[in-house]
């Protein structure tokens, strides 16, 4: 779920409880304002979320140091996810993995298909600052694993928000070089999109936001749909 600072904690807790009760397997909280503006944020909501959630959750946004990560993990999150700060300082991944173990360290990659191939974008939370980071997606995915990332969330930007399905070709290309779990993000618009993703083994897990927030897809219905297609899910 994405939120900005002004969204009150009550709303975050309410959404957390709703998704917990609907059978979400994991929640990811994106503080999308944290990175582009280079400021620190109030993280007191994390322990309140940790108190009500009995499923794993990950916090993303504005984590630039081992100390930032430690505060979040000590508040009760399972994982932290880094994106733009890792592009600016790739050794951050090494330091996080050495301190907390790879299983805590998720690297988010915002990627776009261009004439030069798949390229990593940065500062994507702010349309005015979003730009090509100068990195090739497949090489960056390999590098973050070598540095100790325990999971990669690949957000295929062209698909994001348009609900026409996950970018399966791009995910397959990245997954071919992955020995850690790959989570697909961007493009989910219908239950068929989730089924196609898993049937083609393009990712280990699927992330979606808008279709769940809007109520367009109910998680229990989606899980039943997948199970009916012999895709193993927790019901």
């Amino acid at each position, binding site marked *: 779920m994405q939120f900005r600072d002004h969204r009150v904690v009550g709303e975050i807790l309410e959404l957390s409880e709703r998704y917990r009760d609907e059978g979400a397997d994991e929640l990811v909280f994106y503080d999308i304002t944290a990175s582009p503006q280079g400021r620190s944020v109030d993280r007191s909501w994390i322990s309140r979320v*940790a108190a009500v959630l009995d499923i*794993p959750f990950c916090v993303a946004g504005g984590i630039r140091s081992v100390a930032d990560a430690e505060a979040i993990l000590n508040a*009760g999150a399972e994982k932290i996810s880094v994106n733009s700060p890792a592009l600016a300082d790739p050794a951050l991944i090494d330091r996080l993995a050495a301190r*907390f*173990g790879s*299983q805590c360290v998720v690297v988010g990659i915002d990627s776009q298909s261009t004439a030069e191939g798949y390229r990593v974008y940065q500062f994507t939370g702010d349309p005015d600052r979003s730009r090509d980071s100068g990195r090739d997606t497949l090489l960056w995915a390999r590098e973050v694993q070598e540095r100790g990332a325990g*999971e990669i969330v690949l957000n295929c930007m062209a698909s994001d928000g348009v609900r026409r399905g996950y970018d399966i070709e791009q995910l397959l290309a990245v997954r071919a070089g992955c020995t850690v779990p790959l989570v697909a993000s961007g493009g989910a618009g219908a239950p068929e999109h989730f089924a196609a993703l898993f049937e083609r*083994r393009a990712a280990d897990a699927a992330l979606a936001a808008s279709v769940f927030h809007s109520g367009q897809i109910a998680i229990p219905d989606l899980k039943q749909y997948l199970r009916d297609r012999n895709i193993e899910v*927790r019901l």
Partner: protein
Amino acid sequence: MADVVVIDSGGANIASLLFAMQRLGARAEVSVDPARIRAASHVLLPGVGAAHDTMERLNGNGLAAIIPTLTQPLLGICLGMQLLFSSSAEAAGGSTETPGLGIVPGRVERLRASPDQPVPHMGWNQCERLHQDPLFDGITPAAYFYFVHSYAAPVSGATLATCDYGGRFTAAVRYNNFRGVQFHPERSAGAGARLLANFIALTE
């Protein structure tokens, strides 16, 4: 009422474990004090991070010698379960093995990655029960538990339940009053909550 002590092993899942205890209405406190730990009715040994770092901490504060002598029910979680074993292949650079607490025989090995089995193993899996234990009372065999790990313990006579991830490993273990689970019950929804409730209800 249970008087639960969570051993401060330095890992990052202590907060989520305390919140899980709170949701069960149980009193739980974090400690490294041997006298406090001995006085507890139930002891939780959590662990997230590397085996050698955590053993170094437990050796440093003397708890590595105390834990095997405890007589009340103890539950190791994730790395906390792996540390109950003789040794682990997860070791600091320059060494091949980390000695564990030596309560359960066996050596913890690294999971082998394959295209359909990325490592770390992260996700919800079912377990196969090999032996009855009150830890699993009221939990359907179809229940899913949440796993996050790169190392796993071998299946042995002490194994209560196994999980399959490119091969069977120990998902739950029991040796006298010492129990351990590889998954995270504090993040395994209703099934995990029930398992923790079962643990703090143990009276042996």
